[in-house]
């Protein structure tokens, strides 16, 4: 108890002032512990997270543009077609597994897509945090540009919307290139339930 | 596993008595596996009896389709303030419990 009290004094905040992001990070470093694959380095806020937090997720247009340009540089496109297997894509979209301290390290993660989005009309249990993706490919076709956009968006959503709530699935290592291709298939393949 | 607590409320309405009983019971179906992958044995309430002033008025046979910590609510015809309601259960492993309450 005493050690914690001393640490608290060391990170003492001025009464009733809003703590800075750096102060928050220090507090969290003190108040969290690693468990499973969830290691403490995950608490290091990167520049994008800091800027978005400070701007309440509404950065000035020029700031947003600059962030997006930086994020765009992170996207690595695989060779060949970006459209994978929509059936595997549906399974990946359904799965919410991966990266938690409960998940077995090394097991493939899912995209948690249905947590936030409507996709296949057959799946009624979908979230509304993100826009509906029903009919996505039907409306846009499956040309090279659309493929690159969809792949890029899943790999790093922040490249298109700086403070988006959508995770950066490729950058974070959550999904492999193969998995993202399969999700592109789910969205763009004319045979996919999304486009029926 | 010792039988958990029960809680009952019996309230008089216009010509009827509403009773609600809360029962603590795992209601294991026998189909569930524990963390080690072993089947958890069947353990569920099989019969419920309701008595009013010592006289049996309801005999129910329930199954493992009922979920854990069942809530049993029913309506009796008539009733007066101070009537003694008793609800008892017996499970497939021979454990039992019962509770008494006065109609309020």
């Amino acid at each position, binding site marked *: *108890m005493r050690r914690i*009290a001393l640490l*608290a004094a060391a990170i003492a*905040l001025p*009464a*009733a002032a*809003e*703590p800075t992001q750096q102060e*928050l990070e220090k*507090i969290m470093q*003190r*108040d*969290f*512990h*690693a*468990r499973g694959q*969830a*290691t403490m380095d*995950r*608490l290091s*806020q990167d520049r*994008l*997270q*800091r800027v*978005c*937090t400070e701007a309440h*997720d509404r950065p000035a247009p020029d700031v947003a543009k600059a962030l997006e340009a930086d994020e765009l540089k992170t996207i690595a496109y695989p060779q060949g077609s970006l459209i994978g297997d929509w059936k595997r894509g549906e399974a990946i979209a359904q799965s919410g597994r991966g*990266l*938690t*301290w*409960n998940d077995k390290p090394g097991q493939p993660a899912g995209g948690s897509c*249905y*947590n*936030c989005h409507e996709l296949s009309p057959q799946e*009624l*249990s*979908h*979230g*509304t*945090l993100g826009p509906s993706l029903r009919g996505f490919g039907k409306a846009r076709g499956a040309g090279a540009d659309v493929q690159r956009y969809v792949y890029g968006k899943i790999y790093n959503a*922040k490249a298109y919307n700086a403070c988006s*709530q959508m*995770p950066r699935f490729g950058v*974070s290592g*959550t999904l492999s290139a193969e998995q993202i291709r399969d999700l592109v298939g789910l969205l763009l393949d004319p045979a996919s339930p999304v486009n029926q | 596993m010792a039988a*958990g*607590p*029960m*809680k009952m409320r019996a309230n008089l309405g216009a010509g009827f008595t509403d009773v*609600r009983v*809360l029962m603590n019971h*795992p209601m294991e179906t026998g189909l569930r596996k524990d963390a080690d992958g072993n089947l958890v044995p069947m353990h569920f309430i099989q019969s419920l009896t309701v008595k009013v002033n010592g006289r049996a008025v309801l005999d129910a046979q329930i199954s493992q*389709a*009922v*979920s*854990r*910590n*069942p*809530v049993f*609510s029913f309506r009796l015809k008539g009733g007066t303030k101070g009537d003694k309601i008793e609800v008892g259960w017996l499970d497939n492993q021979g454990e039992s419990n019962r509770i008494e309450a006065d109609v309020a």
Partner: protein
Amino acid sequence: MRLLALAAALALSSGARADDSAKEIQRYRQMVAEGSPAELFELEGETLWKKPGGPKNVSLERCDLGEGPGVLKAAYAHLPRYFKDAERVMDLETRLVYCMTTLQGRSRADATARVFGTADRPSELELLSAYIAGQSRGVAIEPGMAHPKEKTSYELGRALFFHRVGPWDFSCASCHGEEGKRIRMQELPALHEAKYARPVIASWPAYRVSTSQFITLQWRMNDCYRQMRTPEPNFGSETTVALIHFLTATAQGETYHGPGNKR
């Protein structure tokens, strides 16, 4: 329980029948509220509160939860608050651990060995939380906000609520920042807004029907961070208490309903 299956089936109906689902879910919630398994946890919690324990072999009945030693009425509704003897802001669960160590002589390690229980075996803190929270039924929620440390705790909680962090860039606000959204079929209240925070905070801790577990706010903070893909928060840490403080303060004024029920 057929109603449970019926409500669940209706919950998965199409958008066109969303209103019917919402109505059925409301009916189900009302039914469960009128005869909640949470009350069984309150009963067991009362027994535990009165049971002597620890090396000093005393019960927790003289524990001061902020309203005076052994005073339970309104205690939960007035937490989190600053405690002079501990020199820190505490929520219910941290205060209970404090009483277990000071009154009963238990070590902190022993008192926190099993903070979150299972359906088969709730933890001591879950049972005690159910009982003590139940004693605040009908009382207006009013956490401590006057002491400088209470203000700091609130500000820290608020900052944490919006702090984006982790491999998925989530903050609490990622899910709880906008009213009218849901994750899968679970509605997400905008918890930084009083209007939406009030009914939610007024029904914690709660019995969770889908897992038959009794869940507390410390558990909720833990499980949210797990899903945010961060490492694990320390139980009863300043971080977790600050978040609970922020949420409770945002809900202030609401009449506390007693332990509630969740899906």
